[in-house]
């Protein structure tokens, strides 16, 4: 036992901690060790005075003051957490962000529904067999009937702030009018009755887009609303086709396609399936009812090496694993995507996704560089991948991309390349004169969610108005969609950002767009709903724009479908 331990034992005895059994050993050591005895002589008086002073402190019994005592028992006042409930406010940041997004999305839903109600539906939808029996379709508002009974000229005025002004005007101008309306403001988890899902394999493989029970999933992307002019020279709009007419749809025994009431209309096709086949004009309608469609040329794609096309022609899911890509590609192929084999789901898209993330981080880059150059575009998609057929009186093509939610941190953009001879009337939100068009360049419009009009509460939209020449041949192609990125969900994207794995969930591919719109015909005004699920699945289905169903279906009811 060394002296250090002995001196500790010495202190233990002084403070009363030393066991009796160790006292003898301590005394024995002290008797033989002058150093430890010196230590004892130092410690003993010090401990004595410390004990004397400190123990005397215990004679005083201070009490906690009454005020402080009552404070202990005071009930804790709840801290106001703005409009979020406690259970939500205590969650992770991303969940709170999701709640914020939901609130804003709800605001936009209400806002856009109000906008819907303020505008009378002026255009009807594409012909679909099931839609004729849809009770909702039968309950179409009278506005649609009025329009069909007395065709009026409707012109879209796309002003610089992007507001859509649809009005009726009997004093028709020389230009063909374009009737369109913004996409529905309410979100729907899946295609409504009468809508078309491109993920329905049977319909997709057959090149037709009949109604089907579309897969459920959140609608998070933008809508591509295609509209074409009509009836300035007797053109019959789709709403005049019997299959869409509410009255005729509800009439039992009505022939599938009775003659349209417009004299100049040559008559509807005999077979609705033929009519709906992608990009194919039905017999008897070739002169008056033009088809405006965009379809990927499978021949051109066949010449392109597999997986060589960069995003966003592929699925721009940057962080997908190879297995995910294979599954996704197999799904595309299984659903009858003719161009799926040539769509790159891999490296190129990843690069693009990273670029987007960088822009999000820096907040300094205003535009996304074109993913695919015009030269590469021409190489990859040799004409005619856009099959636009216009009647000789149709001169204005308006392509509108409406965004359902302004809350997203991913830029959405649509890039068009007008064909030769096609002039650009205006591009919404773009103050400077539009470039491109006649010179063969591309038109590009990009929206960052949460900025500009989106932040002010208006519906963000990208709108292109292209004017074709007076003597444009009926089958003149109008424009090629170069890129279209409707963006992913802001919530999921934000969550991934916080996790350090920025990515864009999905990008609508050309396959989605082209096949969907190939069933449209001139005069059809349909909304192309892009559904991006949380796991990056892209689903597209056509929905009749400005149809009665949209105005009638409350959001809750739509969400249940």
């Amino acid at each position, binding site marked *: 036992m060394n002296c250090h331990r002995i001196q500790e034992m010495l202190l233990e005895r002084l403070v009363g901690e030393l066991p009796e059994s160790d006292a003898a050993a301590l005394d024995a050591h002290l008797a033989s060790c002058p150093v430890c005895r010196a230590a004892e002589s130092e410690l003993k008086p010090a401990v004595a005075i*410390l004990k004397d002073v400190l*123990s005397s402190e215990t004679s005083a019994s201070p009490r906690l003051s009454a005020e402080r005592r009552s404070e202990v028992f005071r009930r804790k006042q709840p801290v106001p957490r703005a409009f979020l409930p406690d259970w939500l406010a205590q969650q992770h940041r991303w969940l709170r962000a999701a709640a914020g997004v939901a609130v804003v999305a709800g605001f936009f839903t209400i806002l856009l529904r109000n906008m819907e109600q303020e505008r009378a539906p002026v255009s009807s939808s594409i012909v679909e067999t099931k839609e004729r029996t849809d009770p909702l379709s039968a309950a179409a508002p009278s506005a649609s009937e009025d329009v069909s009974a007395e065709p009026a000229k409707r012109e879209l005025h796309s002003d610089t702030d992007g507001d859509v002004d649809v009005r009726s005007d009997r004093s028709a101008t020389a230009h063909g009018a374009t009737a369109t309306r913004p996409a529905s403001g309410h979100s729907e988890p899946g295609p409504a009755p009468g809508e078309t899902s491109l993920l329905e394999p049977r319909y997709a493989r057959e090149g037709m887009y009949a109604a089907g029970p579309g897969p459920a999933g959140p609608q998070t992307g933008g809508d591509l609303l295609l509209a074409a002019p009509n009836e300035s020279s007797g053109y019959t709009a789709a709403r005049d086709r019997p299959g869409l007419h509410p009255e005729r749809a509800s009439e039992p025994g009505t022939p599938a396609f009775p003659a349209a009431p417009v004299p100049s209309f040559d008559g509807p096709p005999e077979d609705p399936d033929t009519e709906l086949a992608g990009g194919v004009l039905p017999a008897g309608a070739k002169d008056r009812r033009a088809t405006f469609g965009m379809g990927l040329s499978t021949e051109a794609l066949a010449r392109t090496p597999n997986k060589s096309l960069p995003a966003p022609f592929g699925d721009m899911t940057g962080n997908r694993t190879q297995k995910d890509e294979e599954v996704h590609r197999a799904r595309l192929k299984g659903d009858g995507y003719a161009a799926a084999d040539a769509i790159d789901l891999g490296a190129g898209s990843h690069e693009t996704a990273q670029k987007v993330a960088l822009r999000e981080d820096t907040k300094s880059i205003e535009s996304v560089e074109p993913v695919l150059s015009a030269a590469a575009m021409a190489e990859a998609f040799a004409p005619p991948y856009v099959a636009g057929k216009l009647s000789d009186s149709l001169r204005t093509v308006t392509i509108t991309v409406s965004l359902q939610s302004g809350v997203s941190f991913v830029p959405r953009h649509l890039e068009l390349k007008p064909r030769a001879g096609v002039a650009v009337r205006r591009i919404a939100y773009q103050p400077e004169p539009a470039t491109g068009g006649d010179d063969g360049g591309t038109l590009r419009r990009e929206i960052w969610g949460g900025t500009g009009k989106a932040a002010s509460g208006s519906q963000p939209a990208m709108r292109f108005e292209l004017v074709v020449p007076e003597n444009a041949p009926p089958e003149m192609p109008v424009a090629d969609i170069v890129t279209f990125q409707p963006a992913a969900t802001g919530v999921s994207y934000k969550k991934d950002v916080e996790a350090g794995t920025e990515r864009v969930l999905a990008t609508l591919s050309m396959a989605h767009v082209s096949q969907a719109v190939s069933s449209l015909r001139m005069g059809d005004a349909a909304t192309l709903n892009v559904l991006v699920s949380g796991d990056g699945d892209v689903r597209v289905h056509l929905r009749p724009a400005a149809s009665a169903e949209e105005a009638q279906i409350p959001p809750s009811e739509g969400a249940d479908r």
Partner: protein
Amino acid sequence: MTSGAEASEQQADKRASRMEALMTEHESALLRYAARLVNSSSAAQDVVQNVFIKCFRGGYMDSVAPGAMKSWLFRVTHNEAVDHVRREARLTVLHEEHGEESCHNPAGSDPGDTASQDERREMVFRALARLNPREKQVVLLRLQEGLSYREIADVTRRTTGNVGNILHHAVKKLAKRLKKEVGAANVSGMT
């Protein structure tokens, strides 16, 4: 009022009564202890109030075992006091500077004379103030509050051997300081 609400109310009253008893049992010791740590009785009131608030509102009075409650209270009091000292660092520095000056020139005292009881008390507390918090904690818990090595080990989450070692070093420091202040002879004479 429903029976459920009544039961809840009774539960709350019962809990408050337990807390009252807990406070009555420990508040004096904690206030003394905290007062020595923060060198202020009013600050000690704040410290101990925070401790009891944590104990009551934070639910520790329900989760901490009754046998360990005393150690828990002293441990949290120490942590609260250290936090308080850190917050009041500037004032503490001034206080220590003042204390140092007093050590060099004790008011009304003659280093050669035997110190009175009050003077001894002042000397002891000045010497205590110069210890580091860990040493001061052990000294106060053992020599003022009378906690055993085992209890101190529970409070400080150290071993009893470590507690003994810290106390040994602390007392040696105090002995040197006291000897320096009043002289070894006076200290011996006081005993």
